[in-house]
């Protein structure tokens, strides 16, 4: 019994040590290392409330421990009858008033922050992106710039980027913990929020509203780059010619297959407004395949042949004729060389 308990102790100690080492989670994902305006705003309130609440908890615990130490029934007390106290107006007033004061201390900055985050009066002076949530991918339409992309959202650092979000099916929720809190993406109305990133980086975004089988695989990236690089990226994306000839023969065959298999019926390459399925213009630059997998050739081939095995419940499965291994490889070759810009996730994540 003792050995077992000992092991348990060592084990839990190790566990907490590991946790301490992991610290606040993975950088550029965790909300505990804020790197954008919204995340900073939330973090300040998180710290404030944690301090106040820890104080309250300590007060409760001090009284609690004293009670348990002093007032446990002792031997020989069997017939002891404590004084039957009805109450105490003074004490009861104190522990009504103090919490009210503490809550006011929390409520005031909360209100200010909430209104600040909701203020979109200056949207027209900034970059505006239409965001569409789909089962289980994200589409980004830079309407003013006439640039369309999916899964990877590029934004300039230090600037507000307004997102106007709508869903094409069920409710999703757009969340980039390191940069800003989340906002639901509904089908019936457009919700607006803004991102403002402090520094360059590839930030993980997640869908936070339960949306079906692959809810947990609906990741996306926010790629924050310097304003200069951002300008370049926009220019590159705009000047990309979907008809340009790929360099290798295999890629060329893949390009033909893309047409032949009618992939383009759903997937746009270039600034076409088709949004049935992810836009593939910068597919070769994406940091992840389908939001979550490494973009290796094998993975891409597996996706093309059997997307269901990677993302259950996706809308691609069964919508196209069977693809042989050979064809899949050629398609992968074609897609992987779609690199319209040298501003890429790698270029910032080093």
């Amino acid at each position: 019994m003792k050995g077992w308990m000992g092991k348990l102790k060592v084990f839990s100690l190790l566990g907490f040590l590991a946790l301490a080492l992991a610290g606040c989670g993975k950088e550029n994902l965790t909300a505990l290392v804020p790197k954008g305006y919204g995340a900073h705003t939330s973090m300040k309130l998180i710290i404030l409330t944690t301090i106040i609440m820890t104080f309250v908890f300590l007060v409760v615990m001090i009284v609690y421990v004293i009670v348990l130490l002093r007032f446990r029934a002792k031997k020989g007390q069997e017939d002891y009858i404590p004084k039957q106290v009805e109450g105490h107006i003074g004490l009861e007033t104190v522990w009504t008033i103090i919490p009210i004061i503490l809550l006011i201390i929390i409520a005031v900055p909360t209100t200010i922050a909430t209104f600040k985050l909701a203020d979109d009066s200056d949207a027209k002076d900034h970059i505006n992106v239409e965001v569409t949530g789909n089962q289980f991918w994200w589409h980004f339409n830079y309407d003013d710039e006439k640039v369309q992309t999916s899964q990877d959202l590029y934004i300039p650092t230090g600037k507000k980027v307004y997102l106007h979000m709508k869903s094409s099916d069920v409710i999703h929720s757009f969340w980039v913990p390191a940069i800003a809190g989340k906002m639901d993406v509904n089908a019936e109305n457009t919700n607006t929020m803004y991102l403002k990133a402090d520094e360059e980086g590839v930030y993980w975004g997640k869908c936070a509203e339960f949306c079906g089988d692959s809810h947990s695989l609906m990741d996306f990236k926010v790629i924050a780059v310097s304003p200069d690089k951002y300008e370049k990226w926009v220019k590159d994306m705009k000047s990309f010619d979907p008809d340009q000839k790929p360099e290798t023969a295999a890629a060329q065959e893949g390009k033909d297959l893309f047409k032949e298999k009618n992939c383009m019926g759903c997937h746009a390459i270039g600034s076409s407004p088709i949004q049935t399925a992810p836009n593939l213009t910068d597919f070769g630059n994406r940091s992840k395949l389908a939001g979550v997998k490494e973009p290796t050739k094998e993975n891409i081939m597996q996706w093309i042949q059997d997307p269901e095995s990677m993302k259950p419940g996706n809308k691609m499965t069964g919508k196209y004729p069977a693809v042989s291994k050979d064809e899949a490889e050629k398609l992968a070759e074609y897609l992987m060389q779609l690199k319209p810009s040298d501003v890429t996730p790698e270029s910032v994540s080093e």
Partner: protein
Amino acid sequence: MSVTATQKRGLGSAIWDYLTTVDHKKIAHLYLAGGGLFFILGGIEALLIRIQLMKPENDFVSAGLYNEIITMHGTTMIFLAAMPLLLGLMNAAMPLQIGARDVAFPFLNSLGFWLFMLGGILLNCSWFMGGAPDAGWTAYAPLSTTSPGHGVDFYILGLQIAGAGTLMGGINFLVTIINMRAPGMTYMRMPLFTWTTFITSILILFAFPALTIGLFLLMFERLFGAAFFDVSLGGNAIIWQHLFWIFGHPEVYILILPCFGVFSDVFSTFSRKRLFGYTAMVFSTIVIAFLGFMVWAHHMFTVGLGPVANTIFSVATMAIAVPTGVKIFNWLATLWGGRITVNSAMLWSLAFIPSFTIGGMTGVMVATVAADYQYHDTYFVIAHFHYVIVGGTVFGIFAGLHYWWPKMFGRILNEALGKTAFWLFFIGFHLTFFIQHFLGLMGMPRRYWVFLEDQGLDTGNLISSIGAFFMAAGVIIFFINIIYTAAKGEKVSGDPYDGRTLEWSIASPPPHYNFKQLPLVRGLDPLWIEKMEGNGKMTPAEPLGDIHMPNNSFIPFMISFGLFIAGFGFIYHNDNMIGTIAMFGGMAIALLSMLTRSVKDDLGYHISKEELEKEAE
């Protein structure tokens, strides 16, 4: 479980007795058994969730099955485990606490139970009939309206039937408490558990109809082609969220308030002191209930309601911390200066204070709108509501079961097993859920079937999963304790704890008419008053006379059974003829049973004075 009596009468007649009983004490047994069964099911589902999340990108269950498991875990635990277990405790203790011979509507009491039970069974039949509901226990449209198969239909019909039962329970308790208190039992002399039962019943009465309508709309949409939530026809899915949370937020107070009552009674009894600040405790309960109706949209901070609505709901939510804080301090003040006995019931109650305080603190944190944009729909929220629902409700149910077990069954639960179960569960609980606060902030949304490698989430999830097994071990030992106690448990007198309230003034288990003569209540903690004045027992308020009792009835079961069949009918009526037949047939059974009830006189029977005198000898 009056095992000996059961064996004498034979199993068949015992089953028939329970099928037809209208005695609140037996209905309490039924609720506890039914709720206990579903608690085990919900617990198994919880373990499956934690096994799946033990390591990154685990493939223990598929995405579809995982979604079914989380949906059923939430739905089962809230509607089919926690609520019925609480209704069981209310049925067992409340009428005794106010000195009543039964509830106001014994027939409805039975009907309420059977509706719950058959609704719960209907819901769980989905596992064997093409898959369980998979849209989350909140069933947000349009995910729920577009979910393929019949899973969500089972959710709708099962909850509709079970919910109707709960509503009846609520009305029944309200009328019981208002009309059937013993002479002298004024409102401000009622034990806190009776008070919280009363206020909980008001919450049930005004909250459940919103769910009823929500479920009807969902049902009409899925089964009859309505367009409430269909954007292409002008619908709006946010309506479902409003209706659900107008019900759903009071619902969490329905789950916690009765437990506040249990803790109040337990603290008072085992510190041998009257409850500190009784009046404040009553009014804080009322304030919590009142505010509980004003805060539903704090579940919807990220929906896009705008900063004005968000701030109002945020401040209203924070306000609830005030009466809750008053309660915590009043409990501590009750213990202060007392003579505290720590047994199992008290362990669960004492453990509640720090656990629930943490849950309350994180409650204020998630009410902080601009910070909630980070917490919302993450494991932080999972941690928060498990701290209040497990740390509050489940601890409260265990405390209540230990406390009233001897009253219900005449035998006291084993202390050694009780304490072992407690420690395992308590350690497991904090191991499972404390770490989840951090997981949420580290970027883990809720309802994630898998989390990815290399995102800093592995260790936390592993610790959480280990904790879940400790909790499971605790629950298993508790059930072993029940079996052990039924077989070999120590028999106790009517008043094993030197109790303070009326339920301890009669035998354990009580006779089916509860009080031979209604007691005269002379103040708060009436039995304690009599003890202090040297009488030792209650003074009767009436001479010995005939006692009027309600008749048993099989009709509640038949009505529920009819609706159960009709439930299947509604689900399948679009698929085949049998479905349509079941729909009409089931409704016919239910309605004809109701008609029978309506036209057949049922005046009950009398236990004569002579019989009562004979029993006394």
